[in-house]
């Protein structure tokens, strides 16, 4: 745990002088999306698939998507820079720090950033008029889990990419699809079942299957075992892939 706290501390002091960028990235941009979709898009969004007002519907989706986007970018592009361009990871790994703890530290730092972003969105959503109850607080730990899965997916991609440009492909398969097909903006029931089957590798549809019923108080645990198992499986597989990817890249081929 000591190593995790050191890496988180390093990331916090690294923000010194970069707060404006952090504010835009973590707070402002997600809010722009929330306001844009919550009000603008909401006027044309209505239907039997949505059993609440659109702002309340889209809020958990936007919280998840902005967290996922942050986790993917930080886990892939930023980690790739630190590991391969700056060779900073090699410097850290020359200390008693080991690779699993390094990944755990990076993931925790990313998850904390996502947590802050989600919390701000939740508060802003409440101010904008979304119907929020105490169940929404239970969404936050779930968002952390989704962050871990996305960060690990990003890190796996980073461990494979020989150039940072290659990570753009990962963004298309993970970031853009999360927004469009992950259920952030529209219920996944609006897509054909084969589309949902293709994108079942994404963590967000499974997380939203928990979060939306949780938010409107209709959560039925017995019907959610599939999504729970998928979410756990995706997270475990992503972490394992990231770890083996970096083990291979840093130790076997280096």
């Amino acid at each position, binding site marked *: 745990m000591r190593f995790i706290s050191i890496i988180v501390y390093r990331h916090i002091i690294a923000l010194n002088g970069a707060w404006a960028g952090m504010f835009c990235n973590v707070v402002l941009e997600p809010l722009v999306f929330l306001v844009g979709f919550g009000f603008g898009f909401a006027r044309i969004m209505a239907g039997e698939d949505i059993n609440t007002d659109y702002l309340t519907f889209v809020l958990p989706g936007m919280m998840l998507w902005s967290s996922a986007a942050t986790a993917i970018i930080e886990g892939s592009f930023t980690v790739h820079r630190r590991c391969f361009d700056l*060779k900073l990871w*090699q*410097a*850290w790994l*020359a200390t008693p720090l080991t690779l699993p703890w390094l990944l755990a530290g990076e993931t925790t730092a990313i998850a904390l950033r996502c947590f802050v972003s989600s919390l701000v969105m939740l508060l802003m959503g409440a101010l904008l008029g979304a119907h929020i109850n105490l169940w929404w607080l239970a969404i936050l730990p779930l968002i952390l889990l989704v962050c871990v899965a996305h960060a690990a997916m990003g890190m796996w991609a980073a461990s494979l990419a020989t150039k940072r440009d290659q990570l753009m492909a990962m963004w298309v398969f993970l970031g853009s699809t999360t927004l469009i097909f992950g259920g952030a903006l529209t219920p996944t029931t609006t897509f054909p079942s084969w589309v949902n089957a293709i994108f079942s590798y994404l963590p967000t549809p499974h997380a939203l299957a928990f979060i939306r019923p949780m938010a409107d108080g209709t959560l039925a645990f017995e019907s959610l075992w599939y999504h729970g198992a998928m979410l756990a499986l995706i997270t475990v597989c992503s972490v394992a892939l990231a770890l083996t990817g970096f083990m291979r890249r840093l*130790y076997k081929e*280096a």
Partner: protein
Amino acid sequence: MTAKAPLITAENLTKTYPAQGKAPAVHAVQGVTFVVQPGTCTGLLGPNGAGKSTTMRMLMGLTRKSGGSLSIFGTDTESLSRTQRTRISLVPQDDNLDPDLTVAENLFVYGLFFGIARATLKDRVPQLLAYMQLEDKADARVSQLSGGMKRRLTLARALVNDPDLIIMDEPTTGLDPQARVMIWQRVLELKKQGKTILLTTHYMDEAQRLCDHIILIDHGTVLDEGTPKQLIARHSKPHVFDVTKPVPAALGKLKLGEYESEDVGDSILYYVEDAITFRKQLPETATYLHRPANMEDVFLKLTGRKLRE
């Protein structure tokens, strides 16, 4: 008097990088055996691609060995305990400093990884910055430092844990003479403090000046090892005459053919046992430089003059 146990022991060490695509497998290290005694400075010398950096990386546990054994403090490098790892430091070839942090923060955060208490680091970081003449740059970002300053900071970072073993991979490459001399002074001081240093360098004068023991490697194997004096005595005559071309015609008529010589383009090097006798044979018109044989002569003799990429 009892002999100290070696601090580093490598036996038949091998490293093979697997084939990647069309590129064949690379046998970077092929059965290297050596020991490093505590409290000494040992140089690992070789041309580019000789296997030096791979050996260094294996020592740091940053690359897994393919075969043989490699131990530090009597423990396999891949099984070193956390406590043992706190006694080792690395000065890598690249200045992989943290550009998002200030100079002082770089040392502070790195020290935390070694488990050093924050209170201790608050005292130690300014001391190290002063030792490396970087105290004025404590709050500067790494991007604001010159190449020499970055190197000094990298060396300071390697000292933050007060290590017993310091592994230096080309510590002075690319530095101006002033910065090189400063690093040399610090390395000699560290030696006096009883630290064990393993270094690689392309500068033979540096190796000769700093190292108690030198291991010459090429193509992943050890060519020879010993003290600089032993290596020079073993592989070169004690004197070198660098005779500028065109060599006077009279020179050829003398018994110069008896001497070992090497054409190096604009001059001919003569390796000589008895400098006085040789000088007597040189015509007055000859332009030459007389110097003692050095590690560069040994290095070029053993590894050849062909360029390595």
